[in-house]
Each structure stands twice: as C-alpha cells, then as structure tokens.
C-alpha cells in the first residue's frame, strides 16, 4: 500500500459553494455577557450537583454530564425565536436548562420522583416539554436526528418560520439514519440546523479512531448541505454561528450543519473513568478554553462586573441548584398507579 503523503484536508471553514464561512464571534453587550455567564454557570453547577447526587445513590441508571460543553447550548439559545424547537440525545440536562425547563423538574426527574418533568417515568435521558418546545431527550444514538428532521418537516408544512435545532454528537454522526435525514432535509429544504457537538470522544473512542472524515462540517457534502466549524468553547462564536444558521434556515435555504468543537470534562457517563485520554489533555482544555472562565475574564477585563458581583451571581445560581436538589431528594416517588398511565391515550 502506498503510504505516500496523503495531504491532510485543509481546514476549510466553508463548503466552497454556499459562500458560508464561520462568522466572527458576536460582539456581546454587557447584558449578554452577564446572561451567558449566568446560564452557563447554572448548567455547570447543576451538573456538578447531579454528579454528587449520583454518587450518593439518589440518581440511578445512566447519567451523562454536560460539563465543559455549556457554551454550545447557551450560545444557540441566544439565537432562537419563540417556537423554535430543540431536540438532542441523552446528554440533555444542559439543553433542558437552556430551554428554560425548571431545574426542580429536571432534578426531580433525575431522582425519579413524582415532581419530575416526566413524573419520574423518563429519567435522565427522556424528558420533554411541549410548552418550551423541547422534544427530548433520546436514548438511542442518532434517532433524534430523524425526529428533529421531522420537527422541521412540521415547520415547513405549517410555513411557520420556525427552525428545528437538532443536536447530536461525533459518535452519532456515523449512524446511517443521519444521512437518510440529511438527504430528505436537503431535498425538501427543511429548516433544520444539525448541530454536531464534537467533544472528540464517542464514549471511549476518539474521533480519529471512529471517523474516516473527521471534519464534521463536511459531512453534508453529498447532500449539498453546507457546514461550518465553530469554536464551541466560545459562547460568542456559537451565538454568531447560531444567528447565521437560523437566518439561513428562515430564508428557506434548507438545512445547515454546525460542527461545534467542544470538550466534555467528565467521562461519557458516571460509570466511565475516562482512561482513554490523559489528565493533562483535560486539564489543558479546562485551563485554556473553559467557556465560563472566558466570559468571566472578559467581564472583569471590561470592568462590566467585579469579582464580588460575579460571586453574587454564583451564589444565586448555587441557591437555585440547592433548591432543585433539595426538592428532588425529598419529593415523593410516583404513585404506584402511575405504572399504568400514559401508555396510550
């Protein structure tokens, strides 16, 4: 076999046809920076608490934490209008908090209590809110991609100007139905943004060990779907990409792929010791690219907030999380009669 230098593909930021390229990070106002800080911090603290409760045995089963990836959902949420939908896989707590589902409801679902968003019957991976346009929470890798495409189909059918934000990971990007969905979405010009959260590991398998094409923004090429690589650790870059993508979809151009280059600090799930990567790799990402620290540094630098003011926000966020945890530990389990409800209408 010829091992002749196969040139690594140039890190193209555009598909070359659509003329799209990664936009500059958004210029945030003080209020936007503060809001992004607060929202990301809520997800971070919430997930830390969930990890704690898991260790204490309050949360069972699978529990996948979003720590490290907070900027992705936070920046995208800032680009949405009312009625835009969101759907994702099982690493979903951050998405739900970003879509303003109640922290109490999410945490109580994690502990399997009656006050949980699914009344204790869904668990960590299966939560929904019609009111907030959050469509789950899906446990089967890749299934949400077809479903999210269906949400976009409904938008198109109703001609309502809404966009479906369909999230999946670098692992799901290798599932067959993803490409079946790409084909239909492009064919029918459906308003769907495929957000590939590339956190570099599909469970324990690194992208380079699982994917022939590691530039996920190119994964739509066969379907004429343009893609952009985005610094998913910078909430301003995510927001700018979100603005561009939602505008693209609302203008009737069909789907778009955003590859969010991000990183999860914790293991795949609570039971994953993450021995497939070095501590140094994780530490480097935390110290140099942490999405929350980036915002904090800018707030201090621009003198938009003092350390004390940020501590106050931190305290408020901790209180929300503590209240949610308190509720989730003390709420009653579902009534046994719940076993037989909600099977068919």
């Amino acid at each position, binding site marked *: 076999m010829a091992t002749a230098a196969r040139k690594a593909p140039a890190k193209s930021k555009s598909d070359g046809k659509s003329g799209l390229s990664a936009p500059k990070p958004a210029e945030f106002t003080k209020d936007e920076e503060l809001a992004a800080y607060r929202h990301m911090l809520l997800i971070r603290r919430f997930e830390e608490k969930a990890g704690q409760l898991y260790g204490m045995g309050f949360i069972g089963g699978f529990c996948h934490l979003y720590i490290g990836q907070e900027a992705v959902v936070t920046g995208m949420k800032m680009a949405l209008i009312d009625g835009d939908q969101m759907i994702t896989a099982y690493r979903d707590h951050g998405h739900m908090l970003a879509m303003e589902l109640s922290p109490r409801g999410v945490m109580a679902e994690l502990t399997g209590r009656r006050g949980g968003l699914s009344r204790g019957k869904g668990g960590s991976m299966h939560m929904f809110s019609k009111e907030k346009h959050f469509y*789950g929470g899906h446990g089967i890798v890749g299934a949400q991609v*077809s479903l999210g495409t269906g949400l976009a189909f409904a938008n198109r059918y109703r001609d309502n100007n809404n966009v479906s934000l369909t999230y999946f990971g670098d692992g799901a990007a290798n599932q067959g139905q993803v490409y079946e969905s790409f084909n*239909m979405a492009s064919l029918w010009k459906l308003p769907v943004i495929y957000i590939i959260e590339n956190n570099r590991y599909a469970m324990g398998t690194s992208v380079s060990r699982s994917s022939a094409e590691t530039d996920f923004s190119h994964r739509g090429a066969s379907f004429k779907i343009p893609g952009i690589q985005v610094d998913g650790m910078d909430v301003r870059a995510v927001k700018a990409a979100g603005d561009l993508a939602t505008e693209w979809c609302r203008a009737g151009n069909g789907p778009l792929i955003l590859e969010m280059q991000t990183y999860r600090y914790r293991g795949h799930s609570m039971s994953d010791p993450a021995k497939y990567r070095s501590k140094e790799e994780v530490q480097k990402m935390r110290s140099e690219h942490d999405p929350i620290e980036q915002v904090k540094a800018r707030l201090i630098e621009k003198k938009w907030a003092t350390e004390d003011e940020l501590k106050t926000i931190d305290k408020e966020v901790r209180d929300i999380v503590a209240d949610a945890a308190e509720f989730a530990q003390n709420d009653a389990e579902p009534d046994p009669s719940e076993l037989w409800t909600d099977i*068919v209408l």
Partner: protein
Amino acid sequence: MPIEILMPALSPTMEEGNLSKWLKNEGDKVVAGDVIAEIETDKATMEVEAVDEGTLGKILIAAGTEGVKVNTPIAVLLQDGESAGDIGKAAAPAKVEAPAKAEAPAAAEDKAEATKPAAAPVAAAPKTEIAADPDIPAGTEMVSTTVREALRDAMAEEMRRDGDVFVMGEEVAEYQGAYKITQGLLQEFGPRRVVDTPITEHGFAGVGVGAAMAGLKPIVEFMTFNFAMQAIDQIINSAAKTLYMSGGQMGAPIVFRGPNGAAARVAAQHSQCYAAWYSHIPGLKVVMPYTAADAKGLLKAAIRDPNPVIFLENEILYGQSFDVPKLDDFVLPIGKARIHKTGKDVTIVSFGIGMTYAVKAEAELRGMGIDVEIIDLRTIRPLDLDTIVASVKKTNRLIVVEEGYPQSSVGDHIANQVSQRAFDFLDAPVITIAGKDVPMPYAANLEKLALPNVGEVIEAVKAVTYR
C-alpha cells in the same frame, strides 16, 4: 401457421384484466418489440409488446373488453405468405406476449391458488353470510368495494376532514402507490400532503414520528412491512414509548400502514407476518382488517387515534370486494372484535388474511353439520379477549388461525389467556394453527405447504369436536 397472441399476466397470480386499447390495427405490420396493446388491472396498466414478426391478422378481443382471462387469445398474427383465410388454422404453440413496462411492480393480485384447501373442494359449499356488524346501523345501503378502494377512501376522507393529516412513503405520490392504495391522492391534495420519500425507511419513519410529536398526523406507508424492519427502532423506541417517557406530555399520533405477510411467490424476505411482533409492544395499537368495511372504518379510526397505530394490510386482499356501508363518516372502534358468523359448536378466531381459511373451512364444516362461530379480531392490540372468552363459554372449543410463525404467536397468547380465564369451559385443548416454522420458500408447492390451509382448520375442528 398463424400465431395466437394470448392475454398476458401482469403478475404470477393475475387471473384476468381489461384490454383497454389496441395500438395496432388489423392489417398492420408488426415487428418484435412493437407495442401492440394496453391492458390494465385495478392497480396498473401495462403495454403489450409483440414477440414475433408478422401482420396483425385479426383482433379477437375488442378494445374496452373487461375481465379477459389470462391466456385467452386476443389476436392472431399472420406470418409471411399467410392470409386471413388461414386464421382458422391458428394453433398452439401460442405465445403469451411479453409484458413490458409494467407501471406497477408485478405483485400478486390473488393467491387463490396458494390458498386453495388441500382437502376437498369447497366450491359447492354455500357462501358464508357475514353477520351484521352492530356498529353499522340496520338498513344502511351497502356498496361493493375492494379493500384497495376502501383504504384509499378512508385516507381521502380523513385528509379532507383534517389539514394536519398527510401521507408519506415510497411511491405514494406520482406513482400513485406501489400497490395503488394512494391512487388519486396527489391529484386531490397536492405534493405538500402526499409526499414521495427516498428509499430510506429508517429515516422517513423518524421524520414521520418527529412531525407527529410536533402535532401533525402522518400516515406513513411502508411499501411492505418487511421493509419496516429497517425502521423498527423509530416505531418502537420513539413512537410507542414517548408518551410514557414524557409523563403524558407528548405522544405520536401516527399511522404506519402497508401490506403485511405473505403475498405470492415472493419468498422469505418479503413474506412475513408482523402481527405478533408489534402486538408485543405497549404503546402501540395494532390493527389487521380482513373486510373492506373494516379496512375503511378502522383506518379512519387509526388516523384519528392519538396513539401510534400499526395498520397491517394484505396484498392478496387488496383486490377483493366486500360490502361497505354508504355512510358519510364511517368510523369503527379500534379494539373490538367482530363476530363474522355466529355458531354454537366451535369458535374459530382469526384476523386479516387468516380469515380466508376460517371462512372456507366454515362453509365445508356446515355441510358436515358442525355449526362454527367465527370471530374476526380486526385489532390485535388492544385484544378483545372478552368477545373471545364469551364465545368460548358458549362453544367450549377454540381454534385460532393465523399466517405468522407459530412460536410466540397471537394464537399462543390467546390460548394462554383463555386457559386462565375460561379453563373450566374448555372441552378440548385450544388448537393454534399458524404458518410453519420455516422461512417462506419460493417454490409454489413448498409455499403452499408453509402456509396454513383449510384442511388443517377442518381437521382441527374435527379434533376438538371429537368427530
């Protein structure tokens, strides 16, 4: 010697068709490959090409003739030097002309051959009178309708009634349906509501479920349910379970429909009954009609149902006609069996195509003085056990007939439930008749052996009635 041109078959089991048009006139020269006529069945039209060279001597079947039997001579081709006077000499080896450019897949129309009983012929037996359905008001005018038309009418009526109802699937729009079930829908409702999909069952099943979660009411047609195995994760994990997992907040009002089970001579990968598979799943409803009236009333109900409904049709039944009530809005309840014929000696429970065996056996058994009660389940989930148990308490004997595989069959479940709920009423073991425990073979004789047959039903009835 003049060559007889015979009426060709569109499919291995087509028995007759209409000769819609002649494209050549008497006296025209014909070369092999020329299109000489058009024929049609209720679901497709097809051009007939000449196989031989010659002059079209005489047209024997006029354009517009309906119900021309396969292999009937339709014209005579004269060869060089022959004239009309030679026509009387036309003889076999007549050639069936090559069907060309079929506009629908050459799919089975009627499996009469395959379903004929191995036992005595039933032709002489009197026809089973279908018992009146209590859900149809007495005195309602009835119209003879094929199952195919009934299904189409049900979809069209529901699409007129509710703008959120749409149909998607392979070949449902421009092709008018692979089995012509969606015929005319594109013309009436347009491409927004009648959506041709690529060949991607897993993907479009998921798109349908997503649209349903967003509040639309999709009808997803699978060209056959064999292909739905590609999509079964979306059907079970997404459609059936979301209502429960969301604590009742969000469900999937969707219908998955299409032909199910064995057709004719399409072998192992295309001949499988999924009734038992889907009936296993909480969160699904599973409907499998036999008559056209049930097909219509239950499909309308399925489209209105807020739950995911698996609607199992059968290709062989598509062309069969039944009386359908002429009502503006005929909707039947899902989950209710129908007593097809009342009787007192033995109960036969069946559903879908399985009913054809039950009905034929009943006619023959009547001649032997055995009074059979036939229950058509119509819905497999939720299962109407009350109707079955009530019948067993009357007849004390139960036979279940289905085409699916025997292990963990619908019949197994019924036998188990009846033994728990009516054990003391049984005068004989419950006998379950199913397809044989083998993949469907291709050879005609083996296929016949793999399916249930009327003889088996008769033998089972004799066994439980100790005759």
